[in-house]
């Protein structure tokens, strides 16, 4: 069976650190960084490679900072 893998690209300078994506992710891929971006927000970042490309994070993101890719390998 083909395995589905995904990848997300987070525009960290647009991220406002609201953490809504962290609760939406079924794979717990996203967590908040300890560093801050130019606006002083703790931005979202990937903390593991389990992304399945479901795009839940991008769908709830109020600032449209997440781009999602999905592929079968």
């Amino acid at each position, binding site marked *: 069976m083909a395995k589905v*893998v*995904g*990848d997300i*690209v987070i525009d960290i300078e*647009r991220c*406002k*650190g*609201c*953490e*809504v994506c*962290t*609760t*939406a992710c079924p794979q717990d*891929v996203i967590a908040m960084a300890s560093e801050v971006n130019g606006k002083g*927000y703790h931005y979202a970042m*990937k*903390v*593991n*490679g389990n*992304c399945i*490309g479901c*795009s*839940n994070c*991008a*769908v*709830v*993101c*109020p*600032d*449209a*900072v*997440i*781009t*999602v*890719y*999905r*592929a079968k*390998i």
Partner: protein
Amino acid sequence: MAETFDRPEIRTPENLVYSKTNVLTDNIMHYCPGCGHGTTHRLLAEVIEEMGIQSETIGIAPVGCSVLAYNYFDVDMQEAAHGRAPAVATAVKRLFPNKFVFTYQGDGDLAAIGTAETIHACNRGENMTIIFVNNGIYGMTGGQMAPTTLPGMPTSTSPYGREVATMGNPLKITELIAQLPGTYYVTRQSVHTPANVRKAKKAIRQAMENQKLNRGLSFVEVVSNCNSGWKLSPVKANKWMEDNMFPFYPLGDIKVNGELVK
């Protein structure tokens, strides 16, 4: 260097499943972190892109938190005086009946100062779409009590909670306008979870598609959080909204194809 967990090999255009729509401009929105306005803007922009009506759409911006909506939508926009967006939209739609006209309003704009314009535009059955973002508070001016504030809900002008005996009852304007014969589609949605966002997008799509039918006004209420006004973190504000707002403002369609549901 820390591991990044990136998979650059799958970042190709054919594997792209989600990216920001071009109908939104590149301006960073001024909304607070986690605000439902951003999500609602994005859904509306995605619907406009999917329908291919970017050059055919005219939006009316309100006064309130979303007063700068014209900076974020890459469509023709017009700012209206406080609460008067449905009146301006009426004029625009009557002058350009083939364009898609929407107003984007908050609860202070639509349900307080603009109640008259809202109710009469709905009653006349103007063939346009109203997007109504309800967070139960005046967000922009500092979290004062709005007509939609829940009983017992503390705000900066009702610090001990809204007392119904002296401050009156919250206004369910969506149920109110669903009773009017001029409305064709009335629904209440939210944008706090992926499932709700997808449902809300379908509702907004339906509301915009209805303008082709010329049967009356389509009204989409989006129950949203106001984490700054409610003094909660975005995630806690969403939970508070589920526990307190949804029992009073139940989600779902209220009027479909001109017929009240139930």
